């Protein structure tokens, strides 16, 4: 195995994406705390990490776990829902406007993470699956279910 890169390189390359995912998953107000928890947990585990091939997926997995912890701690209280900024196009892969993220935040954890990773971080299905620790088919299903709910909310 090659040596792990300096942790700063992970921050430089992925901090913005992790923040985007967390904003989608827990809302803007709480994303900052989850961001800190995510990177502190990553720092703690980093020297013992024995597979450095997908550091981005590894970080997003931790972020996803922290988002779930956060929702558990809050009793899965749904986030206040704001007016959506724009409607996703019916079918195809819609662009999600800023206001839509409030709705995404109210989705069940797996669906929320799948939607956030797909549209917040632009990850392909295989990477979403890796980040969620499930099969690509299950990731696709979570994404599909999440998008279905969003469309219903927005209809």
């Amino acid at each position: 195995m090659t040596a792990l890169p300096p942790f700063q390189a992970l921050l430089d390359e992925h901090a913005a994406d992790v923040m985007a995912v967390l904003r989608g998953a827990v809302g803007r107000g709480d994303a900052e705390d989850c961001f800190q928890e995510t990177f502190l947990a990553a720092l703690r585990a980093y020297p013992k990490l024995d597979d450095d091939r997908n550091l981005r997926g590894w970080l997003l997995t931790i972020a996803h776990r922290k988002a779930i912890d956060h929702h558990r701690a809050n009793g899965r209280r749904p986030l206040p829902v704001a007016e959506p900024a724009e409607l996703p196009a019916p079918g195809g892969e819609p662009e999600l406007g800023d206001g839509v993220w409030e709705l995404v935040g109210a989705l069940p954890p797996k669906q929320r993470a799948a939607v956030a990773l797909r549209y917040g971080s632009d990850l392909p299905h295989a990477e979403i699956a890796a980040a969620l620790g499930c099969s690509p088919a299950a990731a696709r299903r979570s994404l599909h279910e999440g998008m279905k709910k969003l469309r219903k909310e927005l209809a």
Partner: protein
Amino acid sequence: MKAELKRLTDRAAAEGLLDVAYATLDSPFGRILLAATPRGLVRVGLPNQDAGEVLGDLAERVSPRVLEAPARLDDARRQLDLYFRGELHEFDLPLDWQLTTGFREKVQHAIAEIPYGETRSYMQVAASAGNKRAVRAAGTACGSNPIPLVVPCHRVLRTGGSLGGYGGGLPMKEALLELEGFQ
């Protein structure tokens, strides 16, 4: 994002997760990289050395928990600034010698004792390190000094006074000696 990252490095340091902090300093010779562990300054990267390589080496040899944390190097940066302006003659910084061992470490400790404005020959530092015949090894020890400037290997010359070598390039060695009062 800047505030979040600052908060993260502060928390990492408070929790003992900041193994290597680094910062850069703009010197008259170009950008210098400074890296410290909780024990002290561990590495100085000179302008002609690739910062990415220096950081990669630190990640491998010290710890991969390497973060940019300028506040942790404020003191070193301030002292080096003063040194380059000719206003500081002796550094007062804790040093971490973990990147060097054995005879090299002895030589580098001997170099650390050479006062501002003075020079020694490779043979003299070899002798100070306990083996006056190990001149070549003393040269290697100068070349592998992890903390140049603060451990002033630029003050070591060939017997007879010719410059010898320098990791930061000979023009820099010459300019440093000039700064310290040599013609």
